[in-house]
């Protein structure tokens, strides 16, 4: 379990030590680290299903909670670990080729693995303060990675992101302080028990609001979404992929799900707020994406919209909705990383991000072109890609729960998504090719490999709907959400 933390931390440290050696050594080490992380995450998922205990607990330094801290992996954590580490693997492969554009690659790799260790830490933390510490590690690395190109716009974007993110973290820390004064324990299971004893104390409501403000900003839910467009359009492509595909999901959505469903107990008020935020994000993200000429900004607003879907599904809070939320999370991570990595390739080929100036991607770089088409189709909800199924499930869940208006909004936004994706990307992909096309660089081989692998995953995602696969992969996550209040009991039971 602690391998999830030790491997990336060790890799980050080694990158710094091996700063002077050639790129090859460091690339190989980073590739090995990423592969091992991905393999471990899959093994953990299989172990979690195998034991049927739904929770794996492993203590650190021999002290058990509540005095010590432990790592806890339940169905939701295991599933997200697989998502995160798989996406990270492909992004690492991609950045081996892409980051030759920048100097001082070792700093990038070091910060990148620190970010991964922070994200993994958030996923396995069973203790409120641990969660906060790893959140900060991931966030600090992300702030620096966004500014990695050190040009004027990148620094500005990073600074605004950093200030907003730090204020959000401050709210979260304040919430932790209030919560501690009320429950006098920091382990998530202990807090869950203390809150179950007194659920409607005013302090719990106040802490919920603080947490919601903080984590909603990390998740880029409207109205806290402003930093996303800045950060994504200026960051290097692999970082945009990680930010949009992984960081938002774990630091924002997973944290909200874990805290509000497993610890606080899903109250009706929270669910309604989640629904409201989700709907706002879906609509605002869709509207803002129209007429964007910068390809990465388009993707960024699309991310805001899709995260709105997940928040909406979490708010509806039926088992089918949870399934849709988790599945959509997985699909979106894969597909959005794919799209962002491709945008990096496109930017490298054409030296611009302006969609009106790009044309002929399919002609010039078939891998990039076709995988972008596949990615756009998956996000817009075109069968047989995974995105279609996950959106369908969310819409059905809304209908089933008796919210026809929400289902209608979801359908509408899905149509909007399709519209702006195809309106923006068709001329870019299919045009005749610009004259200076012969002078553009070709896409590096390994970048193609990782992008193709992601596209294959996007295609294969609907396989997860088959009952056998579903039981192995996603059901654990759904159970963890549905039985939120059982989290405390299972963790404490596993400790004894």
């Amino acid at each position, binding site marked *: 379990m602690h391998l999830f933390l030790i491997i990336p931390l060790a890799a980050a440290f080694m990158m*710094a030590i091996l700063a002077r050696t050639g790129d090859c050594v460091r690339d190989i080490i980073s590739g090995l680290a990423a592969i091992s992380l991905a393999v471990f995450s899959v093994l953990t998922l299989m172990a979690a299903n195998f034991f049927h205990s739904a929770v794996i607990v492993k203590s650190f330094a021999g002290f058990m909670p509540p005095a010590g801290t432990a790592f806890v992996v339940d169905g939701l954590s295991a599933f997200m670990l697989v998502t995160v580490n798989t996406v990270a693997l492909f992004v690492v492969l991609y950045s081996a080729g892409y980051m030759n554009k920048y100097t001082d690659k070792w700093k990038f790799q070091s*910060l990148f693995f620190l970010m991964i260790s922070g994200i993994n830490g958030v996923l396995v933390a069973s203790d409120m303060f641990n969660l906060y*510490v790893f959140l900060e590690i991931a966030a600090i690395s992300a702030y620096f990675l966004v*500014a990695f190109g050190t040009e004027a716009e990148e620094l500005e974007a990073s600074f605004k992101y950093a200030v907003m993110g730090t204020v959000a973290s401050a709210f979260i820390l304040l919430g932790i302080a209030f919560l501690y*004064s009320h429950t006098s324990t920091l382990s998530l299971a202990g807090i869950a028990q203390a809150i179950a004893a007194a659920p409607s104390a005013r302090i719990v409501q*106040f802490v919920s609001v603080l947490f919601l403000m903080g984590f909603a900003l990390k998740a880029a839910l409207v109205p806290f979404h402003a930093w996303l467009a800045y950060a994504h359009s200026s960051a290097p492509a692999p970082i945009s992929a990680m930010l949009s595909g992984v960081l938002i999901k774990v630091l924002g959505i997973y944290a909200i799900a874990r805290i509000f469903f497993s610890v606080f107990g899903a109250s009706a008020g929270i669910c309604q707020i989640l629904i409201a935020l989700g709907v706002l994000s879906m609509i605002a993200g869709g509207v803002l994406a129209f007429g964007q000429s910068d390809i990465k900004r388009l993707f960024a607003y699309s991310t805001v919209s899709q995260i709105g879907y997940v928040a909406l599904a979490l708010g509806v809070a039926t088992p089918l909705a949870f399934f849709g939320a988790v599945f959509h999370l997985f699909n979106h991570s894969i597909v959005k990383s794919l799209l962002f990595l491709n945008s990096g390739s496109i930017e490298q080929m054409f*030296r611009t991000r302006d969609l009106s100036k790009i044309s002929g991607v399919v002609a010039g770089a078939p891998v990039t072109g076709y995988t972008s088409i596949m990615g756009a189709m998956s996000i817009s909800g075109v069968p047989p890609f995974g995105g279609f199924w996950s959106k369908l499930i969310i819409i059905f869940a809304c209908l089933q729960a008796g919210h026809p208006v929400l289902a209608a909004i979801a359908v509408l936004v899905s149509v909007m998504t399709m519209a702006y994706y195809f309106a923006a990307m068709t001329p870019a992909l299919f045009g005749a090719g610009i004259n200076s096309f012969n002078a553009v660089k070709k896409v590096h081989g390994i970048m193609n490999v990782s992008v193709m692998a992601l596209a294959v995953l996007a295609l294969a995602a609907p396989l997860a709907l088959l009952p056998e696969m579903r039981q192995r992969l996603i059901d654990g996550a759904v159970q963890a959400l549905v039985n939120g209040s059982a989290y405390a009991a299972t963790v404490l039971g596993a400790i004894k």
Partner: protein
Amino acid sequence: MLEIDLLLLFMIASAIIAVQVKDLLSSVIAVGAVGIGLSMSFLIMKAPDLAIMQLVVEVLSLIILIRATIRKDLPFSASGRWAFNTFSMILFLAVFLVFAYFSFSDMHRFGAPLMKVSQEYLGEAMAKTGAHNVIAAITLKYRSIDTLGEVAALFAAVVGVLAIARKVSRPGGIRK
């Protein structure tokens, strides 16, 4: 406890000075005053480790901040929606404080913490870890992951500052 309230008032006054004053250097020094007040509060609240730590970090932050402060603050210009923005911010803060005040009623009285988990720390720390200082036992044994995390965060900050401060970011010069 009257001393802590007085210290808090002093800190608030220094903070307001830091926020409002035009000269950036004076502003940074006022923040230094807030930090010293904080350190003294830690002493009064019987947290000597923290007081030392706060002083050290305070000095470091002041050095870093003074390195960056070379100009005056900008001239005040009430442009556009200044009144509306300020008013809405103060309104938000007032609402925040009111709600916080209500939730204080659920909190324990000042000076009587619940200390469920901490009983175990206080009772067993000496026996299990052999450390006299309970804080050291907690940060180095019971919750060593937090310490690992904070070291990793510092490492990330150092590497990041090195990454940002480099002169040549792309081989062959800046793109645009």
